């Protein structure tokens, strides 16, 4: 057999598997652990020579009064202790550096302790809050209730701004009767700031307007109107314009409102105790000056309230002055004398008959004429001169005089005040009204304050309702009633304000069964509405008395309503 079978016996080399014994370096994962230096933003705040932060030197400086340390206030139990009042930056300041400028300022108490701000008397904490509100704001309304020291808060805020180098020229515009008051308050609260008053004949006024080195210029509304055209033509501008009693511009079409709005300015502040004296449009008008275009009449009260919220600060005595002496209100119902009543009855009957006969041609003016005539008879009988109110007032003043106290008496009419001055001569009654010169007014106030012979001061609502500080008087008499409760409140607050040493008694004379009682009922309802607005800005009251209210005083329907029916 030739077939051979070969069986291969070679064992093939196995495929070698080489195992590398060398340990390869691993892949590197690098974690940067170095913490890099962060970027830095730097803000400088030296707006002027630091030396100027302290007392201004040169011609602007007047000797400072001795400083009262805040420590002394704490010892006296004044509420200026450990709290810290910081400047509150307004929402409309957008630039971060500007916000930091205010945010990083020391609190007002620190400045106080440093003697940077000396005060004739220590401020209340709510006043420091008011200053902290004003200082950073270009548009602000300080609407504190009368008597809480709005002027003082504004003056101190001005002072701070001058020290911070934020303002150099300030204009204060106020009613004529308050110019001396402002001058006095400035010398009391900012003795180092020289103030110039714009007054006198045109050439003199223009020179006073142009005094560039004077930090504070005071002008009355009438001067601003008179010099309005010249001011517009000139290149005069102010870093800050403060309107005192800013309700004076509640009618935006008035010459006064136009004139103040035309003043070139950096900041606009309004001071008023009655920002909504008659209605929402009052506040809108004030904002035409404070922040033009921010609000308008088409806004609902809710929108209006929200839009102005960051620009308005309002406090009431009830919320901030726990230790303010109480105000006691008394409504004295007075029976007219027989002769007065006869005159009153005849006048009212005749008047109503005439109005009825006039039918649809009767106007509000006719109603006003009748109301005024009846109110005047309630004060003094036009036929006999008799006055039940005067008799009651004499009896009241006997007591006031005997206790060494003083009283202020308000009336709507200068004529009534003249009669009162005669009838109250034994109380040394002094008249104060718009017919007097500024000097005569100042003299009247000084006599009333300083002499024991004078127990009574007679004021018209117009001249005496705003700005005057009469906190030494403990009694207020409203001989007749004003149409607007806010004006009456302002009058009352001449006495019931900071510095009042005891309870203030307010007596309102109301002749029984007369037009005065009917007006009072409407005023009370308006006062309630006004309180509600200032608390929540939810609803605005009607402007003054409506036509329906006026005709309703005599039980008549207004012609417009009759036509509609």
């Amino acid at each position, binding site marked *: 057999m030739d077939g051979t079978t070969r069986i291969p016996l070679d064992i093939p080399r196995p495929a070698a598997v080489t195992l590398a014994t060398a340990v390869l370096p691993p892949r590197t994962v690098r*974690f940067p*652990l170095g*913490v*890099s*230096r*962060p*970027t*830095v*933003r*730097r*803000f*400088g*705040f*030296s707006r002027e020579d*630091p*030396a100027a*932060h*302290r007392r201004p030197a040169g011609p602007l400086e007047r000797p400072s009064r001795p400083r009262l340390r805040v420590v002394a206030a704490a010892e006296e139990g004044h509420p200026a202790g450990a709290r*810290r009042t*910081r400047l509150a*930056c307004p929402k409309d300041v957008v630039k*971060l550096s500007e*916000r*930091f*400028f205010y*945010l*990083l*300022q*020391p*609190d007002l108490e*620190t*400045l106080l*302790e*440093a003697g*940077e701000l000396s005060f004739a008397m220590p401020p209340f904490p709510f006043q420091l809050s008011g200053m902290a509100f004003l200082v950073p704001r270009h548009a602000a309304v300080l609407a504190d209730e009368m008597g809480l020291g709005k002027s003082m808060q504004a003056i101190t805020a001005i002072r701070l701004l001058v020290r911070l180098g934020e303002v150099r020229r300030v204009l204060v515009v106020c009613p004529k009767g308050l110019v001396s008051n402002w001058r006095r308050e400035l010398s009391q609260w900012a003795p180092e700031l020289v103030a110039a008053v714009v007054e006198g004949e045109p050439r003199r006024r223009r020179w006073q307007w142009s005094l560039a080195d004077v930090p504070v210029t005071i002008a009355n509304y009438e001067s601003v109107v008179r010099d309005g055209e010249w001011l517009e033509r000139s290149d005069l501008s102010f870093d800050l314009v403060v309107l005192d009693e800013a309700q004076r511009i509640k009618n935006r079409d008035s010459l006064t409102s136009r004139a103040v709005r035309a003043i070139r300015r950096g900041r606009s502040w309004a001071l008023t105790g009655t920002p909504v004296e008659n209605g929402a449009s009052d506040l809108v008008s004030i904002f035409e000056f404070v922040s033009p275009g921010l609000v308008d009449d088409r806004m609902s009260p809710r929108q209006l309230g929200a839009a102005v919220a960051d620009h308005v600060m309002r406090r009431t005595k009830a919320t901030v002055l726990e230790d303010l002496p109480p105000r006691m209100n008394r409504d004295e119902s007075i029976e007219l004398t027989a002769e007065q009543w006869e005159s009153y009855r005849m006048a009212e009957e005749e008047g109503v008959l005439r109005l009825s006969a006039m039918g649809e041609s009767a106007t509000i003016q006719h109603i006003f004429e009748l109301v005024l005539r009846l109110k005047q008879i309630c004060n003094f009988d036009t036929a006999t001169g008799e006055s039940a109110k005067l008799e009651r007032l004499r009896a009241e003043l006997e007591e006031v005089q005997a206790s060494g106290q003083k009283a202020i008496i308000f009336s709507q009419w200068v004529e009534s005040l003249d009669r009162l001055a005669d009838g109250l001569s034994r109380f040394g009654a002094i008249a104060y009204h718009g017919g007097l010169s500024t000097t005569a007014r100042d003299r009247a106030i000084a006599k009333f304050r300083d002499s024991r012979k004078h127990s009574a001061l007679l004021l018209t609502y117009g001249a005496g309702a705003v700005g005057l500080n009469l906190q030494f008087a403990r009694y207020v008499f409203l001989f007749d009633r004003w149409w607007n409760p806010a004006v009456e409140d302002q009058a009352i607050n001449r006495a019931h304000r900071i510095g009042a040493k005891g309870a203030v008694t307010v007596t309102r004379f109301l002749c029984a069964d007369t037009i005065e009682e009917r007006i009072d009922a409407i005023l009370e309802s308006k006062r309630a509405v006004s309180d509600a607005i200032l608390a929540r800005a939810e609803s605005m009251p009607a402007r003054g008395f409506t036509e329906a209210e006026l005709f309703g005083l005599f039980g008549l329907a207004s012609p417009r309503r009759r036509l509609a029916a």
Partner: protein
Amino acid sequence: MEPASSQKPVGFLTTVESSAHGLFGGYLLVDPVGRPLEFSCTAPVRLSRAQQILYGPTLHGYLHADRIGGTLLAEATIAPRIVLIDQHELAELHASTSLPVALVRPDGPVEPQADGPLRRQELERALPSLLPDFDLSEPFERIRAAIDEAQRHG
């Protein structure tokens, strides 16, 4: 007494932790009355987890004192008489500056840094440049408020 104008300002330096953004630093220079002269703040610093683990206990001091504090001091244009801090994490700041550094304790007393170059005597000389009743913890509140403001306004 040295006139106020010739007195050097005082620096206040602190850091603020924000859970949303990271760690901020703020440095406020004030005059003897406490008015601000210059303020600097840093962009926020955020740390990675790895940095947190690997720096270990050295992280806080390094981050606060060197990275943030040192940077703020280096960037300032005004040299203060003293730098006050209110956090122990900033205690190492003295290593980053030749300026004297002191810690303001929450309960009031001020102490020079234990191993810093400032001795108590020097501290006593430096502080009177501020008003006697000056609340030394108050400027730190201002810095925190400003950093808070910066965060809210981007």
